[in-house]
């Protein structure tokens, strides 16, 4: 559309493009560095010689992880919480968003509940009462402690509710005339038309569950119940090696640096796998949620 472009304009175009590409690539450099370390020889790593390309390429770290029961146990806990937590989030979000998307005429208590949920969303009580509550329910050391406290993601409810409200009323009324009750209406009209929004909120909750570590840290007493992020947090950040005893032999081939880098990378893989979907749907989601005008 811009046919006549001056040379200087083109140069600026290239400069901007180049600059942004550089910025984009440097955003990823730390991740590349981690990958390179995980694939490098331990001597090269402790000598600080590894940059963006592995030095002394080997797969020892990954081989070690494959045989590391604790890692996979934690991985399993994470998968379980994603499935249970994500599923519960989905059902509850839909069930809560639908009545809230009704008019006050159809559902007189709608505004009251709306305010209650919004208040619940912005109310963030301190960690001590929160812990006392959950331990009071005897949920400590059960998977439910990771699933139930966040089972109703109110932000997602609001996104979905707004989406429901934008569905044309005609669809609604047509179904009504056919004698559909609210359950049928939700099931056969609203859900099928809301696939993109549902995909968005589901991805939101999956990523949230996968990434959270703190609830695992304080609500799980038994380290066998740690989800993967908590396991990694204890290992890499809090520096509590789970491998004493075998450590001496292990150190002959690996250092905790290379091994930790490999664990960080393996923990990233699920996110990298869903990243294409994330990118598509999250962007839509943030538009739905943040800039509703």
């Amino acid at each position, binding site marked *: 559309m811009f046919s006549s472009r001056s040379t200087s304009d083109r140069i600026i175009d290239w400069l901007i493009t180049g600059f942004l590409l550089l910025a984009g690539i440097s955003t990823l450099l730390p991740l590349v560095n981690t990958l390179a370390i995980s694939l490098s020889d331990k001597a090269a790593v402790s000598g600080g010689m590894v940059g963006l390309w592995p030095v002394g390429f080997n797969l020892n770290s990954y081989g070690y992880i494959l045989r590391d029961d604790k890692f996979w146990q934690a991985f399993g806990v994470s998968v379980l919480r994603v499935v249970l937590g994500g599923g519960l989030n989905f059902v509850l979000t839909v069930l809560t968003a639908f009545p809230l998307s009704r008019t006050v005429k159809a559902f007189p208590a709608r505004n009251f509940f709306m305010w209650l949920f919004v208040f619940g969303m912005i109310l963030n009580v301190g960690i001590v009462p929160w812990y006392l509550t959950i*331990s009071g329910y005897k949920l*400590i050391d059960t998977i439910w402690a990771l699933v139930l406290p966040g089972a109703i993601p109110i932000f997602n409810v609001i996104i979905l509710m707004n989406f429901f409200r934008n569905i044309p009323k005609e669809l609604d009324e047509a179904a009504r005339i056919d004698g559909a009750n609210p359950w049928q209406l939700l099931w056969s009209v609203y859900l099928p038309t809301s696939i993109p929004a549902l995909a968005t909120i589901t991805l939101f909750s999956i990523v949230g569950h996968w990434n959270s570590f703190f609830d695992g840290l304080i609500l799980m*007493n038994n380290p066998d119940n740690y989800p993967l992020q908590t396991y990694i947090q204890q290992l890499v950040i809090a*520096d509590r090696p789970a*491998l004493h005893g075998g450590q*001496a032999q292990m*150190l002959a081939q690996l250092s905790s640096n290379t091994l930790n880098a490999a664990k960080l990378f393996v923990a990233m893989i699920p996110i990298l796998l869903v990243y294409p979907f994330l990118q598509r749907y999250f962007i839509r989601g943030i538009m739905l949620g943040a800039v509703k005008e």
Partner: protein
Amino acid sequence: MIRRALLTPVLLVTLLAVVLSACAGPAQPAQAPAAEQAAQPAATAVPADVLAAQPWRQTDAYSPLPERASLVLVKGGQENASLMPEGESIEDNRALQYIEDTLNVDVTFAWVVPSDSYSDKLNLSIASGDIPDVMTVDAIQMQQLTEAGAIEDLTPYVEKYANADILANWEQTGGVALQAATIDGKIMGIPNVQPQADAPIMVWVRQDWLDKLGLAAPETVDDVEAIAKAFIEQDPDGNGAADTIGLTGTTNPVQVPSNLHGFDAIFNAYGAFPELFYRNADGEIVYGSIQPETKEALTRLAAMYQAGIIDPEFATKDGDKANEIVVGGRGGIMMGPWWISWWPLADSVNNDPNADWQPFMIKDKNGNYTFGMGDYTYSFVVVKKGYPHPEIALKILNVQNDLSYGLNDAPQYYPNFNEIWTLLFPIPFLIEQPYVVERMATEYQEALDGTRDPEAFSEAMKLEYGQIQSDIAAPRSDSSNWATRMARLDAAKLLAGGYDEVRTDPVASRVFSTDPTWPALQKLEEETFLQIITGAKSIDDFDAFVEEWNNSGGAALLEKMNQ
């Protein structure tokens, strides 16, 4: 310092490595035959013929519970579970079974966590009001639980059910141990007794590196600095890279006892005793961290840091990160107590059989060896209120003592008992003779000199003596033989050679550690010391720190103490 010991990661590691002086057991049986005691109801688990043959089983200290009872415990050490023998676990092992059968009790664990998480997890359990039947706590937790009325008063049980060894070991602290466990005239917990040898911090240096660079053994702080400088600059490992760290350190520059990678010895060499409450020349109780000598020592440490002698990143490193330096062959100096040859230095020898670590003590400016000593006692076993058999805690400790020392026919199942005892025992807890380490070193030396008959040693000591002899014959061919020799003989002998001690006042340390203002004072101190050493604050800020410490409640507490 004192009770912080339990709160910090190092201690439980200590417990593991400190290797229950499974030795030096007193020659006489722990308990006199049960003549004076009325017979207890027979236990279901112990057959009558055994009872007849082993009358000690019917004494107060060992009598089985009348009916099988359950006991819920909690435990650290999960990270070392892989050290357990094939087919055994923390939850199920022969030592535990022996205890269960002897006392007619079923032990279960509400949770088993890594050692460093134990205290945090226990605090969470206390917060949730869901505590185990018996647990090991620190002074603050004991105080809180007592105020809460959540634990049993053990006064009626302690004297009656502790066996003779344990009573004697408490006795040897001059009554300090039981006094520390007493709140408002009631004994609320069973106190530990820490071997005193754990407090002095030695400097361990790689002799092979010293020889290679033609350096003499260190005697003073100046020597340590010179050696560290040479190690950094002269490539002692000959790998052609300037990758050697001088002096290692962690986020805990000071901590009594057993501070791995701690700078305590350097403070002590300046006549500074940070984190201790001791009486000065005027007989007043003072706090070591705010004394001018501490400022001098900090000045020196800051200069060493500035010169690159101390690991530039020590202030953000935990023990394990610092261990990696010495185990990985990137450092040739490590500060620590007598037992660090077992852990982590044995791993260093495993990786590199040339790593000839030797312990040395540092002289202070007057040419003496002087060390700050913490409390004998800083942790306690307590029993949940309402547990029907509060005496079981004492009985378990008695049986554990037998298992450790091979008394009362307790079976010796494990050749590597010293490395795994904290995992085997349901309540890993030391009530030791305060000077047992020094005494054993002397006895081993006498045996080597031929003035003592090693055949008279207990089974456990014979095993260690054999390890010592093997390593003398073929140095460092086996890392655990080497570790035992270094700890039990070379390092412990240095301690047996004598040193002066500056001892913390047990009352003052307890009053401070349970005061509500203490955590904030401590945070201020930790932060200030680290910042001064790393140069983020100048040494002149020390005076501001002292003023702030005094104004934030420290001075008032000291004044109260001195009245």
